[in-house]
């Protein structure tokens, strides 16, 4: 008895939309992190959540899920001394990302985003993608969406979960009332930052012939601009706007600006906008050259 026939049959189907055609590429890109040898990708991905897991743990302690016998209301004392540990403050959600997650950003972009297109060149996979129902730009956007999804789980979803858990655990609505005014702005800022940085990393990958070279150039670019920004801001005696040449720093400042956090250094967001805008514009101009069908032949 034939349970499942696998013979070749004529096919009648209604073609899916452009967006749905790009989705498998995005999903494949997202999964690439978990397909590394010896479970290395899974291990690193879990490690990326450490700052958010610490915040989540603090939420549990703060809301009394974990009791410490003491006569002194120690939580109030700690929060009083370190306001960023207050779950009703912006810093509680932003700091684990903006101050403690540079290495997370480097790990995820170096291992996935900036290899996205470059890894398809040595295996001639571009020809497989581009001779089907998807354009080179559709392919690029799908790759970007996959990277965005991966980084978004750490940079967007994790702080959101930490906030929702805190709100749910609180004994009254005070935490929700205190944080509702800034949380949507924090989310918009983080979405913007994740989108911009993954776009830059995936664009970098379109310029390299091999994924390793792409990772190396990207790491040099990020670390180099960060170092140059620090040096220049010291040379110009506290002119912190020089740091804006570092895409991580400038997008970080813009998130703070979105969220309404007052800058802790004399820093003009216009410089961040200009630097980030110029970087993205240059990358996009470069992409117009690299995302042509004729690239398949080269």
């Amino acid at each position, binding site marked *: 008895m034939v349970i499942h026939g696998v013979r*070749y049959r004529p096919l009648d189907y209604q073609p899916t939309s452009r967006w749905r*055609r790009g989705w498998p590429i995005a999903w494949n890109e997202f999964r690439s992190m978990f397909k590394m040898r010896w479970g290395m990708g899974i291990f690193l991905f879990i490690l990326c959540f450490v700052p958010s897991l610490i915040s989540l743990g603090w939420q549990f302690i703060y809301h009394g899920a974990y009791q410490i016998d003491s006569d002194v209301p120690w939580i109030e004392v700690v929060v009083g001394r370190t306001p960023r540990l207050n779950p009703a403050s912006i810093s509680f959600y932003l700091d684990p990302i903006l101050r403690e997650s540079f290495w997370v950003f480097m790990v995820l972009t170096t291992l996935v985003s900036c290899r996205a297109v470059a890894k398809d060149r040595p295996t001639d996979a571009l020809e*497989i993608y581009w001779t089907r129902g998807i354009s080179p730009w559709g392919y690029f956007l799908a790759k970007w969406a996959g990277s965005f999804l991966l980084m978004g789980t750490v940079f967007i979803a994790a702080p959101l979960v930490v906030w929702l858990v805190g709100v749910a655990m609180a004994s009254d609505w005070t935490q929700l009332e205190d944080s509702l005014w800034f949380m949507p702005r924090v989310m918009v800022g983080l979405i913007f930052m994740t989108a911009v940085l993954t776009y830059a990393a995936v664009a970098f990958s379109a310029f390299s012939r091999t994924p390793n070279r792409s990772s190396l150039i990207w790491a040099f670019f990020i670390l180099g601009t960060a170092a140059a920004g620090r040096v220049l801001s010291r040379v110009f005696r506290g002119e912190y706007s020089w740091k804006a040449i570092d895409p991580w720093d400038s997008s970080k400042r813009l998130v703070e600006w979105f969220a309404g956090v007052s800058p802790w250094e004399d820093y003009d967001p216009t410089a961040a906008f200009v630097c980030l805008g110029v970087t993205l514009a240059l990358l996009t101009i470069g992409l117009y050259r690299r995302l042509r069908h004729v690239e398949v032949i080269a």
Partner: protein
Amino acid sequence: MFVTLENLTIRYGSITAVDQASAEFPSGAVGLLGRNGAGKSSILRALLGLVLPHAGEMKILDFSPSDFEESRRHIGYMSEKDGYIAGLNGFEMVALAGEITGLPRRDAARRAHEVLYLVGLEEQRYREIAGYSAGMRQKVKLGTALVHDPDILFLDEPTNGLDPKGRKEMLGLIDFLAKDLGKSIILSSHILADVERVCHSVVLLEKGSVVAAGPLSELTRHEVRVFVVDIAGATTSPIEAFERHGALNIEPSGADRYRVTLPEDVGASSLFAAAVDCGAMVHRLVEHKRSLEDVFLGAVKEGIA
């Protein structure tokens, strides 16, 4: 005609890869023949919309290649390059190719199983492609070309890197696709025997120009008949005897061996009569059939001239 080219010119900078090529590809398997660099792959790439032609027109069924979304639904392309998507197994790659072409997820998965079964990779479909042999990679490439059930297949050097057994299997598959499943195929190759084995028509390219085109049976048909005759014991001149019996051309090709060209309406019996005339005996008589190689070499020679 499933593909039509009209004065197609393709240039890469200052290099002209295809020069005013005009050809029609009738349904069934058609060979696109030419030496390396003759412009075969350039024509396929132009048909896929990867290269913009400098001049001329192309048509695939009723579509223009510039309408890439619609035309590619009807085209399955198997590249000459050894392309694969890193990190995927055979099944995942074929299913992904189906989804990108526009198949719904479930259909793409079902279809991937079907085509991998068809190309003979049912046992190896869950192995990572990076570990496939050359033959298996060619098969998985054919699977990705077939996954969306296209009407037209562009196969660029499909037997590249295959051992004799793999080559036989691949040609058998192509033959099956053309004859049993009714696919229209352009088989681009420089291996004449492959084209002769599966195609009913050919388009011959030399230096970017079409030098011959048409059904194989017509191209290989002789207007004259050529025989190689071995005789022994001639008492008079055999050449004169052959001429008396209607030979158009006689070329001695070794001791007592002659290559004799006869008009189409003159039979081989005239050669025996000529042998009797000169007092000789015929030891061996072989009719020389015109092969695709003769057509190709002749066309190339004419092209160069």
